[in-house]
């Protein structure tokens, strides 16, 4: 892809440019002579497979990593960015792919961590809260700024991360997969804001695996593959397929697998499940051979529901039947013993042991299977891990790399591998494709399909409507801790789902309240 003429922008020199940047980690060349030009008033999208080097490049730009070669130019002048603080001083703000929030501190304090307003040494708490509120208002999110960040949902944390970057004026704003945890509406608001910033002359970098977003937003697209720049040009000169082809080096087949035929016997029946204050009277059924999508807006309760099914919250009331047998799932351990699996949203805190290697993480939940007389069969562990690395295309220098050093998407794949290794009969996935590249995404869809074909059931929660629509046999919609209704993906639309999710309507107004949604009555 040959770039066209320089777009008609006011500045002749890029605000920030890199030339021939190289960055090597033990066993990996993360960046290999990469060039990039960021112009004021331009949104520059950076795309590439998991592990292509996007985040690494941004960390070089923001002073976290020092490059092993190449140059960084700020307004045409070579600069050395020796620390995050230095990059900040110059007017760079960044939303990292991984959260960098201080859990025990309030939202307001997190927003102004480095520059809390003070007068004569004392914090101006009211002033800080007011300013925090202002920023959040700009983003259109309603979060109490006095709440400790650790009590927020993942989506809310994401908004706080974004708000933090927006809280101060900047000349360069980098967003590394800011929308992975957000729903459509929030994404829309964010985009409006980013466009405003563009108009104000900020140079923006936008990293995402959601190509629809990229095309909706970007002026310029740069593609990275294996640490090299493999294409760069104005957005309107690219097509989606071209981008994908550059990214993965081949054409991809249809995104979603074809739907399977008939569903089987009921596998999981949920009756009147409640959790005081969070979930209210939820009933539904999952069948063998079925993929069911569960959709809800931020805070609608879909993730709590997933945890409740998995025995990971206490105080759950109601009945759960597996294969027609009532079961009490009071701990994840019991749930796993019943062949349930749960991929949670927060991989860093709940999914991975960052300090351990790929093998250990992949086999963590199924370790008993690799044990003979108490001793681990390390050869088999390794073989299984290797097979997942291949199947999921996990990019790692070795099976013994600590997963903390993998790219975000590859970490997510390790989480999936961990649960696939348990051979689950009911697979509950919360945002399973969060941060995963298009190639790997369709791979994961294939796996879900395969599981369903083998007679298992998949319940997946996603904020991406196309994914929900394309993959599910049925769609459940939640709002305010209640099931709003069930929809047939063949006969519904994004608009209808959203209407249900915002609580404006209930599915089939005729449905008598309280009647179990979904599936035949047992």
């Amino acid at each position, binding site marked *: 892809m040959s770039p066209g003429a320089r777009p008609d922008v006011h500045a002749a020199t890029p605000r920030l440019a890199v030339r021939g940047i190289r960055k090597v980690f033990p066993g990996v060349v993360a960046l290999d002579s990469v060039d990039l030009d960021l112009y004021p008033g331009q949104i520059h999208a950076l795309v590439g497979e998991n592990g292509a080097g996007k985040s690494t490049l941004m960390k070089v730009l923001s002073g*976290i990593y020092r490059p092993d070669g190449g140059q960084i130019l700020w307004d045409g002048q070579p600069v050395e960015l020796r*620390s*995050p*603080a230095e990059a*900040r001083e110059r007017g760079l703000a960044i939303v*990292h792919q991984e*959260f*960098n*929030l*201080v*859990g*025990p*501190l309030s939202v307001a*304090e997190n927003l102004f*961590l*480095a520059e*809390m307003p*003070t007068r004569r*040494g*004392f*914090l101006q*708490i009211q002033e800080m809260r007011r300013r925090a509120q202002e920023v959040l208002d700009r983003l259109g999110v309603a979060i109490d700024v006095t709440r400790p960040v*650790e*009590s927020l*949902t*993942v989506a809310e*944390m994401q908004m706080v991360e974004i708000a933090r970057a927006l809280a101060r004026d900047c000349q360069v704003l980098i967003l590394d997969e800011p929308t992975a945890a957000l729903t459509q509406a929030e994404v829309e608001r964010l985009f409006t804001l980013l466009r405003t910033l563009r108009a104000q002359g900020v140079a923006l970098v936008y990293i995402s695996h959601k190509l629809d977003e990229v095309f909706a937003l970007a002026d310029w697209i740069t593609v990275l593959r294996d640490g090299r720049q493999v294409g760069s040009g104005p957005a309107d000169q690219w097509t989606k397929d071209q981008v994908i082809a550059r990214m993965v080096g081949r054409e991809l087949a249809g995104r979603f697998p074809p739907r399977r035929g008939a569903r089987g016997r009921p596998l999981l029946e949920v009756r009147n499940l409640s*959790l*005081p*204050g*969070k979930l209210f009277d939820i009933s539904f059924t999952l069948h063998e051979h079925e993929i069911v999508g569960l959709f809800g807006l931020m805070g609608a309760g879909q*993730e*709590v529901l997933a*945890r409740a099914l998995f*025995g*990971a*919250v*206490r*105080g759950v009331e109601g009945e759960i039947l597996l294969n027609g047998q009532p079961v009490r799932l*009071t*701990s*994840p*351990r019991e749930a796993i013993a019943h062949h349930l699996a749960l991929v949670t*949203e*927060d991989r*860093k*805190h*709940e999914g991975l042991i960052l300090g351990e290697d790929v093998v250990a993480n992949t086999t963590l939940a199924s370790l008993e299977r690799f044990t003979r007389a108490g001793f681990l069969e390390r050869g088999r562990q390794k073989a299984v891990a290797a097979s997942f690395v291949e199947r999921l295309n996990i990019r790692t220098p070795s099976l013994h790399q600590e997963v903390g050093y993998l790219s975000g998407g590859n970490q997510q794949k390790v989480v999936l591998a961990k649960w696939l290794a348990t051979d689950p009969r009911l697979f509950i996935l919360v945002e399973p494709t969060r941060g995963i590249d298009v190639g790997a995404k369709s791979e994961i869809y294939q796996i879900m399909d395969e599981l369903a074909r083998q007679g298992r059931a998949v319940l997946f929660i996603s904020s991406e409507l196309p994914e929900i629509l394309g993959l599910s046999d049925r769609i459940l919609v939640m709002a305010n801790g209640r099931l709003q209704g069930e929809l047939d993906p063949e006969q519904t639309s994004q608009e209808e789902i959203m209407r249900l999710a915002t609580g404006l309507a209930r599915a089939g107004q005729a449905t008598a309240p309280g009647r179990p949604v979904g599936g035949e009555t047992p």
Partner: protein
Amino acid sequence: MTQNRWVAWMQRYGMFAILVLLCLILGLMHERFFTTANLLVVTRQAAINGLLAAGMTLVILTGGIDLSVGSVLALAGAVSAGTLAATGDLTWAILAALAVGTVLGFINGLFVAYPNLPPFIVTLATMAWARGLTLVYTDGRPILIRDAAYRFIGGGYLGPLPVPVVILLVTYLVLWIFLTRTRWGRLIYAVGGNEQACRLAGIPVPRVKTLVYTASGFFAGLTGLVLTARLVSAQPTAGAGYELDAIAAVILGGTSLAGGRGSILGTLVGALIMGVLDNGLNLMNVSPFYQEVAKGLVILGAVLLDWALHRAGALGLRPAAKETAPGEGSGPDPSALASH
């Protein structure tokens, strides 16, 4: 709603309730316990541990630990007494104690903050060399304090309150304001809560760390001053083992060893619980050997009760709150996750 409030209150001030309960029980068991005289005695005794624990709280909030406080206290007391003997000047003697504490704390801070050495080892080393220096300085002998003004710091009264108690209260008030109302105070929590995030945000993490160890040293110096005045002599062996008591007060007060969470007022409650317990066991004439047993059991009982109060809230009334609490399981209520 009111019930919910009550639970929230218990979760925040559970240890305070336990302190009150402990006092009530002791009051029932010994008629002298609730006399003003006795309560002042308890508080004065708790002041030593309370002062050390105050500085320790700052350190622990950043996720660190300071084992050197006992030795620093001893050296500060000795140098202070020596200075008094040499100059006869109270001001210099006081400054000497504070300076020694501050400098030793600063040294701890430098090693912990800049080369990023493990605080446990750094302060353990300081514990050893500072004790050694104390012995060398005093030649292993106590240094007697003859100055009445100096003695006043340990044994005098300001109005109805013993001087050490006044120092204690002022310290906690200042630190409470510092931790809740100033930028550096909040940064202490921030560094303990997520050091990496702080570095990325450009916060001078090493300076924050240096600050807390320096502060801990300062308070150890102050404690050395008070203790020397109270004992009217600087003891070369003073403060041995005090670090564990100080840390225990901090943790009893609800501050997490993992850092980022806790409150200075909680530490005061923790120190008071330990002081009241010692006093009560003495009053009731529990035989010394059984005293240790009783002390262990009461402390265990206190944390267990505190936990039960939390759990009552977590289970019945505030179900499943914070399930998604990040922060590596150091959250206040990891038990909300069903665990067996």
